């Protein structure tokens, strides 16, 4: 299983090597090399997976199925795009004296550790190891977020560290509870947290304990996803962190955290009626969607604008998973992919604008199309894709989610099952109609806010003293590729990706 070992070894070695190197070109070369190995390994794993089905590797430590392979695909693609973008971005920051050249290797070391932690969280068979890895992502990124060492970035980094560590601790309590229930069924102590083992006995686990465990895990990992009401760290961190880091946070880390919730959900769904997990996911999804739409509307800082748009889209994906069924789940997964592409692009553009205009205030940025034509195009495309307009694939996934919502409704929105806490005496049809209306209204609000702000930035004449030209650099390549992918995916999903998505959907839907 050389390709699985390579997944872990590449970022590990690259990180260690980066610490010993000081030349910028060499650091970038190491990074690109490691990314190339990662992507190759991912392609090999995808082929094996699609041919032979799910498999375990490295003494049962690693478990790969369609779902985790799909997440690996997102990590690889966005990671590669970031690596290209970092080349021009970091060089310019060093040239301007924002980053001391001696600190560059620290940046790369932390970046590799961040990647490593996310990969381990994705491929780990044990839910416990997955927890350790997700906490490790917090530790690796907190200094990346505070990398500029200004007051604001220190504040954002501290908030991120504390909120996410506490949130994640709650998830650990959930993992302990899961272990508590599985120990009564499984005799092998060393394996009792492995997904492969848990899935075989999931229907015999104690439903009370599982419910409690799921709530803790949802709140814990939900903090890392940035779901409302655990989102308050997210806009600050996204504003303060360097652009490539934000692209990774928004594009990949959120997806990995959602993945951790989904893994747990599959296990819980075997023992507890589907309405329990579905209802909770949809509840948080709606809370995030509605809150974020409101904040998008009143935003005057473009990085925060994109941050709230992240919360909105995670909400939409959560609603998809909450509604469930083949359509909702497929839509949710597909939306994760589209959002990762569009959002990393948006933050690349935001990073370029910030470097040129030196402000994050929307009101002070005008005429990006004159000053930076390439960036203006990227900003426009990502804005349209984030508003889920055709011809972008986010339109397709959002339509899938809303269709599922309108046809199936949210399963047992309130817990009527055992405790009989609250029952809402509304007809089923009315509930579906109302929820769909809320969904569409929020999406429309977010669309209006986003497009209004972005067009304001793109058109007009730039303020005096802003350089009005943009030379082609390597950093533009990933933007073009991502934009192309967003358009192509809306009409044609390449067969391997389609197969991955379909198989992942069957894993997540428990009949």
């Amino acid at each position, binding site marked *: 299983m050389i390709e699985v070992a390579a997944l872990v070894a590449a970022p590990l070695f690259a990180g260690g090597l980066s610490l010993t190197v000081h030349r910028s070109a060499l650091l970038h070369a190491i990074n690109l090399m490691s990314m190339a190995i990662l992507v190759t390994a991912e392609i090999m794993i995808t082929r094996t997976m699609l041919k032979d089905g799910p498999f375990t590797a490295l003494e049962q430590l690693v478990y790969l199925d369609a779902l985790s392979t799909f997440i690996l695909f997102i990590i690889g693609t966005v990671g590669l795009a970031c690596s290209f973008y970092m080349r021009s971005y970091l060089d310019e920051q060093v040239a301007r004296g924002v980053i001391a050249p001696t600190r560059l290797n620290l940046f790369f070391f932390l970046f590799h550790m961040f990647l490593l932690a996310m990969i381990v969280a994705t491929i780990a068979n*044990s839910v*416990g*190891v997955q*927890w*350790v*890895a997700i*906490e*490790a992502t*917090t*530790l690796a990124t*907190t*200094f990346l977020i*505070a990398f500029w*060492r*200004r*007051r*604001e970035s*220190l*504040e*954002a*980094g*501290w*908030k991120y*560290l*504390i909120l996410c*560590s*506490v949130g994640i*601790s*709650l998830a*650990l*309590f959930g*993992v*302990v*509870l899961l*272990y*508590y*229930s599985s*120990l*009564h069924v499984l005799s092998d*102590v*060393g394996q*009792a*947290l492995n997904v492969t083992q848990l899935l075989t006995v999931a229907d015999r686990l*104690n439903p*009370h*304990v599982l419910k*409690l465990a799921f709530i803790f895990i949802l709140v814990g990992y939900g903090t890392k996803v940035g779901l409302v009401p655990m989102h308050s760290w997210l*806009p*600050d961190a996204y*504003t*303060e962190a360097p652009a490539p880091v934000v692209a990774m946070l928004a594009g990949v880390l959120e997806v990995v955290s959602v993945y951790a919730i989904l893994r747990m959900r599959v296990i819980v769904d075997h023992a507890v009626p589907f309405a329990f997990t579905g209802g909770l996911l949809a509840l948080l999804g709606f809370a995030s969607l509605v809150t974020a739409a409101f*904040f998008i509307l*009143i935003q005057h800082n473009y990085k925060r604008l994109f941050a709230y748009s992240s919360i909105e889209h995670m909400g939409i994906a959560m609603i998809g998973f909450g509604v469930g069924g083949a359509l909702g789940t497929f839509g949710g997964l597909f939306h994760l992919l589209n959002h990762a592409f569009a959002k990393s692009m948006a933050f690349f553009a935001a990073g370029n604008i910030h470097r040129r205009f030196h402000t994050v205030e929307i009101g002070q940025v005008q005429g990006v199309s004159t000053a930076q034509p390439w960036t203006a195009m990227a900003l426009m495309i990502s804005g349209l894709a984030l508003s889920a307009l055709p011809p972008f694939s986010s339109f397709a996934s959002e339509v899938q989610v809303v269709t599922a919502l309108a046809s199936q409704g949210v399963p047992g929105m309130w817990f009527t099952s055992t405790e009989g806490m609250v029952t809402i005496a509304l007809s089923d049809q009315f509930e579906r109609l109302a929820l769909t209306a809320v969904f569409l209204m929020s999406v429309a609000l977010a669309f209006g806010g986003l497009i209004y702000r972005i067009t304001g930035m793109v058109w007009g004449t730039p303020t005096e003293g802003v350089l009005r030209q943009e030379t082609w650099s390597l950093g533009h390549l990933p933007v073009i590729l991502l934009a192309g992918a967003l358009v192509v995916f809306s009409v044609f999903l390449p067969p391997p990706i389609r197969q991955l998505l379909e198989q992942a959907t069957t894993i997540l839907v428990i009949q």
Partner: protein
Amino acid sequence: MQILPYNGAQLVDLCSALLLLTCFAIVAQRRLSSCVDLFALQSAFLVVTAALVAYLTGNQHLYIAAALTAVIKVIIIPLVLKKVIDRLNVKRELVMYVNVPTGLLICGGLVMLAFFIAQPIIPFGFLLTRDSLAIALGIVLIGFFTMIARQKAVTQLVGFLVLENGLFLAATAATYGMPLIVELGVFFDVLIATLIAGIYTNRLQDAFDNVDTNRLTVLKE
């Protein structure tokens, strides 16, 4: 000496209760360095609990966990925190969002809440340690509360570590410890998190001349 199962359970309960008691002491304590001392004391009780459970059940790997707790949480982390406090210009928590008596009352309520939540799942536990699960949840909630109620970065950190102690007690009590690889990972994460938070505290001190987290209000809507 042979310890009867009934007496063993009593001993484990006693140790867990001592852990809970130190939580209340931390909530009532204003001096930063005393909070750290109390945290070290609490961790020492945790070591005793883990070793006791290991001895009574014959789970060898719990001894490793106990030893790691002793090294990391009783010795290293308090030392690091003391070093951080030495650099600060304010050694006492002067303003709190919640005063001490109210805080203690709230914590009492949190412990009751913990017993209420844990009640339905306690009967599935092992006889020896099943009451400790509710106590552990109580400690987690109190740690949570401390983080919210205090302003100093150091006391927030102590709150986080108390929370982590509660989780460790839960793992020891409910399941006789997690698989070794997970336990090692958790220790590693806690250690690194504390070191990082310590570095942050220093930088916050330099940047804001203060570690009151209520000064961190540059970023808002």
